[in-house]
């Protein structure tokens, strides 16, 4: 049995509030099965319902149909067993880096001694290389540093599954590639089960074992998974040269575009 599973999950949003009675299907009939310690990417265009998908797994919203199972048990609302790194970081602006991460440790590990909690907090802050900024508040940090804090907070929950909602989309290209490498390193170290939402094909190929593509909405659904066989850790260079990766790029692009067309083929050939 898969570690994390979505079975026939659909989600509709009400159009113009509850009164109109009209609904817009966002996700329909999503099936997803993720193994323990697997790094899975879900790739989709903006507006295709990616954040809805991750919010469903996090339990922040409930599906209209279908079930979501973690270790065979249906999930019941949000919980720290599914740690999430939000798209816009969602750091509490009145707390320092340390306090933001400590809040998570304190919440999930209520029964351990407080110096142990502080130790654990420091461990995760160091893991994302932010030891020197532990006493700064979010507004004193760059976007990349804020994202690191969010990752540290997500990891500090020591969740069964770590959900990353477009974690690098707001960052500049250089910062993004540094952070991607760090996430790859952290994943190699911790071997967490990770679900990453992204709109970047290269990012998905670089980091994940398995890529699902979300078709364009409304009523988006998942295409069958593509396996990325290349061994970890991977480098960008490898990706641009490797024939398997090239094929994966083409296939994913084709799925995203609905069907491969002349323009995208030309783009990829260049």
């Amino acid at each position, binding site marked *: 049995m898969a570690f994390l599973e979505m079975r026939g999950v659909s989600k509709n949003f009400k159009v113009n509030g509850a009164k109109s009675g009209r609904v817009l299907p966002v996700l329909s009939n999503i099936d997803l099965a993720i193994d323990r310690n697997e790094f899975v990417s879900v790739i989709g265009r903006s507006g295709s319902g990616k954040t809805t998908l991750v919010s469903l797994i*996090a339990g*922040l919203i409930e599906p209209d149909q279908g079930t979501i199972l973690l270790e065979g048990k249906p999930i019941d*609302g*949000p*919980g*720290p067993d*599914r*740690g*999430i790194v*939000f798209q*816009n970081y*969602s750091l*509490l*602006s*009145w*707390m320092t880096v340390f306090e933001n991460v400590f*809040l*998570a440790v304190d*919440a*999930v590990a209520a029964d351990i001694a407080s110096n142990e909690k502080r130790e654990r907090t420091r461990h995760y802050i160091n893991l994302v290389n932010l030891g020197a900024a532990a006493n700064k508040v979010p507004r004193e940090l760059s976007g990349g540093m804020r994202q690191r804090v969010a990752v540290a907070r997500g990891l500090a*929950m020591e969740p069964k599954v770590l959900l990353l909602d477009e974690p690098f989309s707001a960052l500049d290209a250089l910062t993004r590639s540094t952070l991607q490498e760090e996430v790859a390193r952290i994943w190699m170290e911790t071997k967490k089960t990770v679900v990453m939402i992204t709109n970047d094909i290269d990012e998905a190929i670089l980091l994940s074992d398995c890529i699902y593509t979300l078709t364009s909405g409304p009523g988006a659904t998942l295409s069958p998974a593509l396996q990325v066989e290349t061994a970890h850790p991977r480098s960008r260079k490898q990706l641009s040269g490797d024939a398997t990766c090239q094929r994966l790029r083409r296939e994913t692009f084709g799925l995203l575009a609905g069907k491969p067309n002349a323009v995208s083929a030309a783009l990829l050939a260049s």
Partner: protein
Amino acid sequence: MEKRFDSAAIILPMLGVGLVLLVWTFLSLKVAPDLPSPWRTWEESKKYILNPFFKDGEMNQGILRFTFLSLVRVAKGYLLAIAIGTPLGFLLGMSANFHRAFDPVIQVLRPISPLAWLPLGLVIFKQSELAALFTIAICAMWPTVINTAMGVRSISQEYLNVGRVLKLSPIKTLRRIMIPATLPYMFTGYRLSLGMAWLVIVAAEMLTGAPGLGGFLWQEYNSLVYSHILLSILAIGLIGYALDRLMSLVEGRFKTA
């Protein structure tokens, strides 16, 4: 450039004050003969200003003594106002049903003048000091209530989601997330409420005859010492301004937080 800017910052406000003094003098000379000129006001008031802490009787004290009495009264009413107003604002902001039930009541009570509340306070409490506190509290409460409620309603869903994912208890969510997120709004409310409380104190003291700046003002009107009315007005304005600056400083600290 910089030097010119500095001198302008001093000269222009002085020009403004000078102009007001000029108009005041003109009015006292040509239009309202009962209005004391600025010079006469100073002559007749300097005892109160130069010796601000003397006390010759309940209603004949130095200006800072009266100020102190008024400030104590305002502080009591104001603390009462924010002690009631803050939780009320939280309830209004958190519960849509509570908001639906009480918002109309609040909207009706809000515009009522302190002059209308005071007699009611006297009827209820049968004692002028308590009636004054009641009036200050009920008039000064609304900015705190409304700003706090607005602050709670505008807490970002992202912050609340953090609390949900971490499964924080309601108390912890309130303490670690909702209150800190609302704090800047709360302090805007507190500043406006203090301004309101200071406005109300004069009315309350005038009607109850309690010793303080407002009480002094009213008494001197009745004793035909008009220069002391002007003295009181100036003192009320200056203290009000100082209070507002003080609260702005406090508010600014929380804005950046």
